[in-house]
């Protein structure tokens, strides 16, 4: 092991490994508990961010760069703007395309509410395949997301009643996000008629020229908003940041991660306090040999840090596997999502590890500082 001595020139690492490995069961319990706690938190954050990123990619795949909605609406689903703005937006230089969409909740079979998206005829999302042919939805026809179908026990071929109007479910809608999997899709004019919202829409999705610079993009956004003071333009990223559903999922993930990090601190702190209490005499002997309180504390801190780091690495793996498994499960519910590991997640893991090791070691270090050399003699 001479190579290891070369690497570990100060001998601290091997001393720490010796100390940890002489209590293998305790170290294993500490590492696994923290790993599972951190892994659970990472899973939640990973799932929420993957779902969000998938929605984001969904917008990108539909070439949606901006969303035009009613200003001063804390819940964007309650936005209502005139459909006539679509034509005005299309005329602006730099805008490649604009599509209106109405979103509303309807009464399904006189029983429960269901979210419905209305898109204009000709929009490819309200079409379906039949015998290799793409057919557009006709009036009185709807597509259904798989989660909505599962929740309401509906299948293609059935007829449903929506706000007292009869509609035929033609096919499943292949949603590319969890938002749309729980939704019904119909023609915009149908939905406007059902909700008595003539020429009214919730959003206008805007597709921009790809060669626009950042500054001309900002300028264009201002130009669109200048059409009418009632209008507000947001990027899809901003929309998702403010969206209550994604914010809730994201917030929940982070709350669980923080809660689990606190739990990890408690675990490592308890275990290290136990260890330090058990090793009071050993640490006192070190003090009697001229180890300063700082050096002994550093030993305890590094032991805690090694345990926390190993736990974080295993926790990261658990988080990754948990995220994949959760997203596979989510997909069985009809919610499509890619699993995306972001740099931010890895940073969270790294920061959490440092925080857990530092705070978790504080109490044991406090106990360590109170150890006096005279204790070495009391046995």
């Amino acid at each position, binding site marked *: 092991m001479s190579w290891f001595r070369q690497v570990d020139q100060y*001998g601290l690492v091997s001393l720490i490994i*010796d100390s940890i490995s002489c209590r293998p069961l305790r170290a294993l319990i500490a590492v696994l508990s923290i790993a599972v706690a951190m892994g659970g938190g990472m899973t939640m954050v990973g799932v929420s961010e993957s779902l969000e990123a998938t929605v984001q990619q969904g917008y990108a795949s539909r070439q949606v760069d901006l969303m035009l909605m009613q200003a001063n609406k804390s819940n964007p689903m309650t936005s209502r703007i005139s459909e006539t703005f679509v034509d005005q937006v299309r005329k602006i230089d730099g805008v490649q395309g604009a599509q209106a969409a109405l979103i509303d909740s309807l009464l399904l079979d006189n029983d429960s509410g269901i979210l419905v998206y209305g898109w204009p005829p000709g929009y490819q999302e309200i079409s379906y395949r039949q015998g290799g042919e793409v057919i557009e939805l006709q009036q009185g026809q709807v597509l259904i997301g798989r989660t909505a179908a599962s929740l309401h026990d509906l299948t293609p071929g059935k007829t449903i009643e929506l706000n007292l109007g009869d509609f035929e479910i033609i096919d499943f809608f292949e949603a590319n996000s969890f938002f749309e999997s729980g939704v019904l899709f119909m023609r915009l004019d149908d939905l406007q008629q059902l909700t008595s919202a003539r020429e009214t829409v919730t959003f206008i999705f805007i597709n921009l020229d790809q060669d626009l610079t950042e500054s001309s993009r900002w300028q264009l956004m201002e130009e669109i908003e200048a059409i009418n003071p009632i209008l507000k333009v947001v990027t899809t990223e901003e929309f998702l940041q403010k969206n209550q559903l994604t914010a809730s999922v994201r917030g929940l993930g982070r709350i669980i991660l923080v809660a689990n990090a606190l739990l990890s601190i408690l675990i490592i702190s308890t275990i290290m306090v136990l260890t330090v209490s058990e090793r009071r005499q050993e640490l006192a002997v070190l003090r*009697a040999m001229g180890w300063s309180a700082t050096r002994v504390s550093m030993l305890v801190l590094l032991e805690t840090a090694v345990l926390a780091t190993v736990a974080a690495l295993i926790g990261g793996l658990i988080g990754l596997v948990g995220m994949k498994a959760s997203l596979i499960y989510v997909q069985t519910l009809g919610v499509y999502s890619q699993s995306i590991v972001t740099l931010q997640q890895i940073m969270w893991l790294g920061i959490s590890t440092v925080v857990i090791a530092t705070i978790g070691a504080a109490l044991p270090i406090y106990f360590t500082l109170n150890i006096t*050399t*005279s204790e070495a003699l009391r046995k």
Partner: protein
Amino acid sequence: MALLELQNISRVYGGVIRALDDVSLSITAGETVALLGASGSGKSTLLNIIAGFETPSSGTVRVAGEPVSTQQPDKFHQNIIGFLFQQFNLLDHLSAVRNVELALFPTCRKAQQRYLNSCKLLKEVGLGDRLHSRAALLSGGERQRVAFCRSIANQPQLLLADEPTGNLDKASSKKLLSIVANYMSSHQGTLIVATHDDEVAKICQRSIRLEDGRVVE
């Protein structure tokens, strides 16, 4: 010149138990001294006070002319004092060589150097074949020899030993005493050893007897 000077040292526990009562003595560099006395006579308390592990209730301890109370504890224990415990106080999960290395941690930064120095010391006391044995697996005599190496690893000016043969059989005691005596004569070190074993006292130049916390001869 006196290496160690004790002036009117008293130690009272809980305001009632007088472990040491007005002890004064002086020990010169290179001297080997046996502290004799029955159990409870105050020998260990006196060693603890000299080592700076305990504070006297009154009186002054000076080592190399400096009061112990004003010395920086870490430096004092690294460079001036070596302590040999009756119960060895080894870290059982570590090997013999690692136990000795621990004493060198604060004074020698390079792990390789610490390792080589520790191996050399252990070989000198006949433990060359037990370098990597865990302390827990060593015999009592071997453990005390490791503890001795650890106590002299930094070449202290003053070696304090509290009943070093108290937990050893006769053969192991004899071997340890011979090692200690050889070391003291070759290094001209100063030794104070608390004991009630006459054999231990024989290796020392001078004996001091304590009774009920007082020096009686």
